[in-house]
């Protein structure tokens, strides 16, 4: 493969070029209620070429090897067009030359598990909610994505790295009269099939919650002090803060750049946030990013002060900061962009019981359900919550959506718990879907959060 890639790069007339070829194997088994709606096992592939020419940078993603000449010409023309229209030439930070063949350590390679076993396991978990009377349907799938990536650049780097992602996840829907409620359920990871076995408890727990939601009250909209559980706090930090640590999002936005200056005190003293894809045995793990740069643990916030951000080779130069290998692509259809790897709030000292006592009166909100950010404002949904009175958990509430302001909410984080947990199924859509985008946190107590009830 590298021989072929070398011959492609040899046809490019540019100061720098790199090429990534990927083979992506996908196995999908989907249930909709009791019915099996999809079973497929497929392999797809493609190339992404990036070049730096005359100070302009461009990329082209192409499927067919026969299109290589057309693709190269396109990239060269686009790079020249850019170079004629920008003030300063694009530069890439110096990066180590790497020759590496990296295969992840797996606890049971999913490729060695029979299709029947995958089908039966998914069916078994899917049946857990379906035995309950008020469960109207489920949408649960097994997904296995295996990306074999081959990266070559004109500086001499040659990297082969495989990314293996497995998960069983989806929605469980309950119904009573005209009211429906749903919860998400998900298990998975980056180290093989074993994490999917013996996980009945997760499906039983979520089934129980979605049935209870039918009897819960809608939360009343307003401002509250809240405790977020680990999943919720993970989504929160991803949306509220994580995206604006991605240098490419603020690179050309002077007002945001000013707000996100290194040294700015943006959060409360007790807030420490890191993005570390190098941690083993978690969803977001990778060794080298899609620019051939080694992934590094990157402290983003320390004691409430902004101390770092996530970079590509291009933004590292633009900001005059260190490379940390956070530039990845969803697959062969895309050039890489800056992504969070594994972002989390680092644990503090308090237990959940202590946090509840501190909260006294407010809401305890659990399990994220999708979020979005506009930089200043962020919004995310929760699957369920509880009213807390005098430090004790009371009635369940539902239909919870949370809104906040980046510049105030980080300062309103009052206490950070000691029980860090990372998401097993994560995910982030920033133009491209990153299924391995991992987030997490311990329980956290935040003051003055806007809840938009119905």
């Amino acid at each position, binding site marked *: 493969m590298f021989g072929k890639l070398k011959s492609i790069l040899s046809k490019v007339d540019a100061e720098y070029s790199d090429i990534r070829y990927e083979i992506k194997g996908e196995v999908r088994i989907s249930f909709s209620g009791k019915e099996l709606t999809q*079973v497929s096992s497929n392999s797809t592939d*493609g190339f992404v070429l990036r070049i730096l020419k005359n100070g302009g940078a461009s990329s082209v993603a192409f499927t067919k090897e026969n299109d290589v000449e057309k693709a190269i010409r396109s990239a060269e023309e686009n790079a020249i*067009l850019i170079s004629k229209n920008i003030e300063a030439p694009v530069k890439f930070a110096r990066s180590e030359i790497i020759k590496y063949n990296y295969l992840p350590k797996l606890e049971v390679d999913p490729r060695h598990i029979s299709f029947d076993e995958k089908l039966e396991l998914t069916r078994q978990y899917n049946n857990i909610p379906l035995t309950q009377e008020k469960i109207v349907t489920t949408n649960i799938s097994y997904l296995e994505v295996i990306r074999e990536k081959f990266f070559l650049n004109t500086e001499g780097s040659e990297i082969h790295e495989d990314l293996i992602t497995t998960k069983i996840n989806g929605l469980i829907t309950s119904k009573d009269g005209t009211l429906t409620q749903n919860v998400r359920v998900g298990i998975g990871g980056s180290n093989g099939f074993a994490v999917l076995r013996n996980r009945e408890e997760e499906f039983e727990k979520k089934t129980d919650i979605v049935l209870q939601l039918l009897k819960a009250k809608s939360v009343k909209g307003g401002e509250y002090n809240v405790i977020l559980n680990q999943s919720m706090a993970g989504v929160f930090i991803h949306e509220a803060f994580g995206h604006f640590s991605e240098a490419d999002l603020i690179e050309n936005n002077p007002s945001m750049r000013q707000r996100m200056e290194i040294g700015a005190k943006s959060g409360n003293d007790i807030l420490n946030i890191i993005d570390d894809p190098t941690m083993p045995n978690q969803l977001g793990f990778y060794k080298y990013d899609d620019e051939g740069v080694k992934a590094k643990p990157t402290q983003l916030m320390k004691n409430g002060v902004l101390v770092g951000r996530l970079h590509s080779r291009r933004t590292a130069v633009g900001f005059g900061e260190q490379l940390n290998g956070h530039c990845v692509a969803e697959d062969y*259809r895309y050039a890489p962009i800056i992504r969070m790897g594994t972002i989390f709030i680092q644990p503090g000292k308090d237990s959940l019981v202590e946090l509840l006592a501190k909260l006294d009166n407010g809401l305890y909100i659990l399990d994220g*359900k999708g979020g979005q950010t*506009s930089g200043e404002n962020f919004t995310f949904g929760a699957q369920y919550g509880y009213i807390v009175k005098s430090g004790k958990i009371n009635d369940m509430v539902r239909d919870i959506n949370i809104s906040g302001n980046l510049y105030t909410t980080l300062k309103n984080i009052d206490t950070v718990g000691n029980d860090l947990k990372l998401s097993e199924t994560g995910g982030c859509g920033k133009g491209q879907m990153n299924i391995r985008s991992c987030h997490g946190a311990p329980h956290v107590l935040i003051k003055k959060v806007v809840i938009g*009830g119905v």
Partner: protein
Amino acid sequence: MDKLLEIARKSCDQVELYSFDETVNIIQFENSRLKDVDSKVQSGISLRVIKDNKLGFAYTKNLINRDELLQNALNALKGKVEAKFNFPLTRNFPKLKTYDSGIEKISNIDLVEECNRVSAILSSKTKGQVNTVAVSSINGLGIMNSTGTNLSLKTSEYSIFITVLYPNSYAAICRLLSFKRFEKTPDDSLQSIIDLYNQSEKEVRPKSGRMKVLFMPEIMHVLMWRLQSAASGIAIYQKQSPLLEKIDDKIFDDKLTIANNPLDDKIPGARPFDDEAFPCSYFPIIENGVLRNFYYDLNYAEKINTKPTGHGFRSARWASETIALKPTPSLEHLYIQPGESPFSELLKQIDKGIIIAGALGAHSGNIPNGDFSIGLSPGLYVENGEIVGRVKDAMVAGNIYDTMKDVVAIEDSTHQAGGGIFPSILFDNVSVVT
């Protein structure tokens, strides 16, 4: 491809071959300056086979080995996914002009020039940061099946997505315009962005409460996703739709008429047939507030024992590989009938209320139930018919089965936005939490 169909036919009862190719150029401007110019040249094939009423599904990007693709599809049959429907024999379908050869006459240089022109105008008339993305694409689609259907379609599209950002945020006034060939962004579109932005520079913090809320075309997807979810053949079949048994009931305000119209070839993306080769048609969902139809693909039509409606499309909320998706019931060409009030009239009718110009979290919340709860990015606050400033740090929440019963007025013209063509719509009694 013919060969593949032939070989597959020998071992299956029915076969469908779907092929797709696209060439795309993407130009990105940030802060009025060129940032990126990138291209894509993509293609792929998807195969569906039916044997003994069971479905096999497989796909690939590079057809290196025909037999391997077929084998993947045949292996998938082992899963015993039910498929009791038939691929259609389609010879007659509406003749639409989906490709304009004018698209070939422009180059990336022209697109860069247009983004420069638009950026210059907007940055001279507003204090906001201007970001634009221009995309030109040419797509080809082919569907063959074992009944003898052999259809192809070529489409062209040029689009420009313009945003003018408020300081310290990505909250912005946005507009999407798309055409079948390159066209200059009309002056009145630019003026509308400029006016909305300049009138809302000041930050205001109104009190929470129920009030009039105007959904701009760019925000209509918040409401449409909920209607689409409930009227889909899947939700009907699974008995989880709030609209079960409600055909011919009045569920919305009688000013609302909502249809799916893939036949409008004045705009890009028109389709004479769906991704299963079933002919498309003008399809009413809501007529004067009354629910008229649910929508199906071949599979769910058969499961409910009703006629297919030509809504089988390979689509997903988060853009996936088309060939990797199976067709499911989808509304890709929504249209809301315009009303009688120019935008200025809608404004005058707002004693106290919010114009939603940007929304966060539309994909979150209890979509099947019709609930929505979105963050504003931004909202424009209106008092006595005038925009007095912008609102952030606020949420608007409701349920479409309440909100869409209370329509004050509908704009007299439609605009392109994500998912369809919509007028602005003014609703009353919507909950706003600040």
